[in-house]
């Protein structure tokens, strides 16, 4: 597709001016774009480095080591690197090879944590079995015969262990979806609890049973059963602390994007600041429209023009009074009767008109293009009249008739770098396959969608830093503000408590609904 600038009939004198500024914007954008990635073609990629800089690794080493022994090894903690652990596609291989030397330290720690936690989990799981088996192995002949009671206890131990295994698998064995800066307080707490608990059981066992070679086997088995019961209760505690407690909404969180003011509200329960940040980021990718730097240049140029053209001359003598100069400039700029609001109004009205016109052309072109295609039913496929095409070929056949209109529309709304020709063709064949109408095909292009809809290269937001005045492991409170920064923009998060609601009841007897007519009689006397 050509990169030539489009010409358009001018409606007012201002459109010439705005066309002028658009050219300047586009040049600026192109210059700005090249270090990031190329427009459209997927054959060659320049890399957006995901180097985790040293600063955002906000965790300290001690906490990392302790965290390595986490029973919940699925979610260990280091620094934030955004959504990272998903499937690797072909295009990412190049990027990964460059990242590997940078992030080797991180992955090592993560896998170390995973293995240590797995080992500890296995140990804890095998402890009851060891308690039961060790007397049999070591002093079998001295043991009292146990009979049915013991067998019943064996069965209960077995099933409780199975239940514990299934519960642990369901709760903790999950793909890590994020790295967070500091240790997860509740997980550390649980870990410490489990460790102390099992340690004290082993201590007691070693001293009282192994050393003295206790012969009461039933007592030993019951001891093992009590351990398994206590493990199940700790598992219950883990569910309550890690999963259930934050379900009830206690806070309303307002998230504002710093560049264009787009804002959303979310409801959260009792979470630490870092977990709340995770929730906000997960929702960001779904709810916020994609960050488009091309849309921001207009306001910057306006602001620049406002102060331009004013120069300060120091008449009274030497001496560089900087603050006085800037104040004088601000005052002069405020007093100057400028008509930039006029420009803004006409520019916006003009832009809207242009967008609507191009949109109308686009819709008509796409509708017309879709009429050229007809789906062949199964019976008709045998007696093929012309050549049969699969969806991809059909898409390629009708694409040229709508390509120009679509390209013009994307340029006007400044979305052209988000959609390459290949992606448009893919989407078109997808829509044709699924019997979508032209309007359904266009839904993706008419309005900017959430970030997840677009190619990862265009996200501008993969590495996040949590900036907070409070400790990130402290819980949410009313009035807490923290910022999630990425390279180009930041999300400012403001926490408000849901107010305490006083709800009282009022009983209305169904028979109490009575009415009178409004009287206004007039009597002559």
């Amino acid at each position, binding site marked *: 597709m050509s990169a030539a600038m489009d010409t358009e009939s001018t409606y007012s004198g201002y459109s010439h001016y705005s066309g002028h500024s658009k050219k300047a914007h586009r040049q600026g954008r192109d210059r700005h774009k090249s270090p990031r990635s190329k427009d459209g073609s997927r054959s060659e990629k320049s890399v957006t480095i995901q180097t985790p800089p040293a600063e955002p690794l906000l965790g300290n080493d001690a906490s990392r080591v302790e965290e390595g022994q986490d029973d919940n090894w699925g979610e260990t903690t280091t620094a934030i690197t955004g959504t990272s652990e998903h499937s690797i596609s072909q295009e990412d291989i190049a990027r990964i090879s460059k990242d590997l030397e940078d992030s080797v330290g991180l992955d090592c720690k993560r896998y170390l944590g995973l293995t240590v936690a797995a080992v500890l989990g296995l140990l804890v799981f095998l402890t009851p079995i060891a308690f039961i088996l060790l007397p049999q192995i070591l002093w079998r002949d001295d043991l009292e015969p146990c009979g049915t009671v013991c067998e019943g206890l064996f069965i209960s131990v077995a099933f409780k262990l199975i239940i514990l295994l299934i519960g642990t698998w369901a709760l903790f064995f999950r793909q890590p979806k994020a790295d967070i800066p500091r240790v997860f307080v509740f997980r550390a707490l649980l870990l410490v609890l489990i460790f102390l608990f099992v340690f004290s059981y082993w201590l007691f066992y070693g001293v009282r049973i192994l050393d003295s070679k206790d012969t009461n086997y039933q007592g030993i088995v019951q001891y093992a059963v009590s351990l398994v019961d206590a493990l199940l209760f700790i598992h219950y505690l883990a569910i309550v602390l890690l999963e259930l407690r934050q379900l009830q909404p206690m806070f309303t969180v307002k998230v504002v994007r710093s560049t264009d003011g787009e804002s959303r509200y979310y409801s959260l329960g009792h979470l630490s600041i870092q977990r709340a940040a995770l929730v906000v980021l997960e929702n960001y990718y779904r709810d916020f429209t994609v960050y488009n730097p091309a849309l921001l240049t207009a306001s910057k140029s306006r602001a620049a023009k406002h102060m331009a053209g004013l120069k300060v001359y120091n008449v009274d003598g030497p001496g560089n009074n900087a603050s006085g100069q800037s104040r004088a400039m601000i005052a002069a700029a405020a007093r100057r009767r400028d008509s930039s609001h006029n420009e803004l109004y006409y520019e916006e009205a003009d832009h809207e008109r242009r967008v609507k016109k191009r949109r109308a052309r686009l819709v008509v072109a796409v509708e017309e293009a879709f009429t050229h295609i007809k789906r062949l039913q199964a019976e008709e496929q045998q007696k093929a009249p012309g050549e049969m095409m699969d969806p991809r070929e059909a898409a390629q056949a009708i694409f040229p008739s709508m390509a120009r209109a679509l390209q013009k529309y994307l340029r006007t709304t400044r979305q052209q770098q988000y959609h390459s020709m290949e992606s448009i063709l893919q989407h078109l064949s997808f829509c044709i396959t699924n019997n979508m109408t032209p309007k359904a095909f266009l839904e993706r292009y008419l309005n900017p969608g959430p970030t997840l809809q677009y190619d990862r290269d265009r996200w501008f937001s993969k590495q996040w830093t949590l900036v907070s005045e409070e400790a990130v492991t402290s819980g949410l409170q009313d009035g807490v503000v923290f910022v999630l920064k990425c390279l180009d923009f930041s999300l400012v998060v403001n926490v408000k408590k849901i107010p305490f609601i006083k709800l009282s009841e009022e009983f209305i007897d169904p028979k109490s609904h009575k009415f009178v007519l*409004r009287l206004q009689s*007039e009597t*002559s006397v």
Partner: protein
Amino acid sequence: RLLPVVTTPSCLLFSFQQRIEIHKLRQGDNLILGFSIGGGIDQDPTQNPFSEDKTDKGIYVTRVTEGGPAEVAGLQIGDKIMQVNGWDMTMVTHDQARKRLTKRNEEVVRLLVTRQSLQKAVQQSMMS
């Protein structure tokens, strides 16, 4: 009869009232006064076009027939009737008001009315 009477109760409130004496006219078997009333404590005060305060449930004159005894006596449309022959009319139902005005054995009714324009006229004369 046309002179306004300024009554000053103990709390120094000025209320501008007028006494009007109407002689009933005999028409066949009935004695008529020649005006219509609206209002009353059982009526809806917000529909009263003549009252200043829309919660006022008093009795108001809504129509005065031309040439009737009321017009001759000086009753005007929009007057609020405060008393009829000494009976209070500010807290009565519509029907009670009608009955007090149409007693068969009375030929003359003496009304105590108040009127907004009257208030303004006296205020102007006091200021000048």
